């Protein structure tokens, strides 16, 4: 009779993250890396050219790069690129049964793959933020901007991963949420802003992309959340989503065909 120990949740996490490590160094991983770094690189190249030509560089250019390019555009796309490479990929490739037939901690599998893509994406978000320093940002702003991006990426990636496990077209629902709901809510009554990722990102970063003008129809005063609370909300929200991913995988019978049975 074989007598092997049952792997602990941490061993499961470690096995999956290390096992799939080469995946982040492949095409999808480099696309993820390029998403935040490439636009900032372009900004730097353009400002360098303008400086050489003696043109004036707008002083708040780094804020536009941060809010419009990184926060509103690249970060959601990064989450939409990374989330399908998580446990959803194993379900679609029908490799998940080989993992489910092991005595590992099943609820830890989504987080094991997710943490890998989170770490890789977070690294390049920080690199992109460092590029903002060359565009005029301050070391203090860098700290808050990097924290805002990394924590929001954490929460958004967890949310996208959960949607991917709950819905077959999770990426589509995620894209609708990030690109329709988030911008729309900015003109809705104040407290609705608290159920957007942008609200917490801007609260941590300490700056806003645009103020809503009083002349705008339905315009509402924008509200802020204290930095500490905003950080806590994003961390807890992310953990909650990963926990729900784990619960969903644990509770869902997945057969060899990758589909659910009635059980």
């Amino acid at each position, binding site marked *: 009779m*074989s007598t092997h120990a049952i792997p602990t949740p941490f061993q499961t996490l470690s096995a999956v993250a*290390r096992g*799939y490590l*080469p995946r982040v160094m492949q095409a999808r991983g480099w696309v993820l890396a390029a998403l935040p770094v490439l636009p900032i690189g372009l900004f730097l190249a353009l400002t360098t050219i303008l400086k050489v030509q003696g043109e004036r560089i707008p002083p708040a250019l780094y804020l536009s790069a941060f809010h419009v390019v990184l926060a509103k555009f690249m970060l959601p796309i990064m989450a939409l690129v990374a989330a399908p490479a998580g446990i959803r*990929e194993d379900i679609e490739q029908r490799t998940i049964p080989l993992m*489910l*037939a092991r*005595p590992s901690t099943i609820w830890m599998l989504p987080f094991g793959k997710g943490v890998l893509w989170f770490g890789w994406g977070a690294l390049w978000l920080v690199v992109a933020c460092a590029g903002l320093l060359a565009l005029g940002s301050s070391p203090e702003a860098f700290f808050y901007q990097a924290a805002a991006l990394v924590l929001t990426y954490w929460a958004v990636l967890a949310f996208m991963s959960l949607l991917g496990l709950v819905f077959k077209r999770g990426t589509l629902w995620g894209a609708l949420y990030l690109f329709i709901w988030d911008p729309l809510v900015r003109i809705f009554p104040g407290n609705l802003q608290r159920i957007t990722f942008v609200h917490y990102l801007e609260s941590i970063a300490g700056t806003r992309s645009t103020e809503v003008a009083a002349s705008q129809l339905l315009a509402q005063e924008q509200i802020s959340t204290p930095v500490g609370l905003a950080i806590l909300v994003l961390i807890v929200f992310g953990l909650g989503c990963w926990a729900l991913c784990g619960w969903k995988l644990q509770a869902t019978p997945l*057969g*060899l065909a990758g589909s659910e049975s009635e059980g």
Partner: protein
Amino acid sequence: MIRLERASLRYGDILGLSPTSFELPDGGGITGLLGPNGAGKSSLIQLLSGLLPPSGGEVGIFGESPFRNPAVLTRIGLVPEGDRFPVGLNGTRWLRMMGELSGLTGSALDESIQRALVAVGMETRAQLGFSSMSKGMRQRIRMAQALLHDPDLLILDEPFNGLDPEARLNLMELMRNLALGGKRIIVSSHILGEVAQLTDRILLLFRGRLLAEGSVAEIRELLDRHPVELRIASEAARQVARWAVEQDELVALRMEDGAAVLAVRNPRDFLPRLQDAVVTGQLPLRALDPLDLNLDAVFQYLTKDHA
């Protein structure tokens, strides 16, 4: 050791496995799951390997339900059907991850990987990426992952698909050795000859039902009762027909242009006599085509027979 008590499996409205009961005893041995495509072999395997819970009834492996039960899963090795692997990984890294997910660590993990790779003959090629491996090599790696944690119960779903004859023989030899070493092996196939080379105990499945359980001889006897259609092409088809009507096994005869189509029982008795008749020049034969020697036809016949 393995006990099913009216265990069934549904996929929505579709019944994958009707209420099924059987027991397999403790100790080593090989049991064949035989049935045509769609017979319920994979459904049964998913219940046994703990991937799916039964929709009704009970499944007991080592005395416990296997579904999401690490204590049972640590003693099961599964080789599912199909050529599926995570993209972008190589064999060694994937085996290491699978070993760790089975609770192996440190030197025990290294030794297990090496032992499993030697057993399947992949010790020098496991570092290749899956996309660079042949189908047969990937099948061997899939077998290796099931052996890593030295399971007491090994479940293999159509393991010979895609293997060349040499690899097939090697795998059969490996399975026999494991069974002799005390491992219980359940192997599914839709080819009787394949299973018959491995085991004398067969579970015969058809359309989600356990049709028969017994030795290869008993199953062969059941199969022999099914008349097989043979088309014998000959320039002297009438002479063939005259010879055929003298044979006890003949059930039906019809003539086609340049051929006689015979329906015969017990083809294993009939065919050697036909061969002798051709060799001794009694029958001028141009071609022999079995028309319905596939398992589907045999199983259709068996179900009618049982009804």
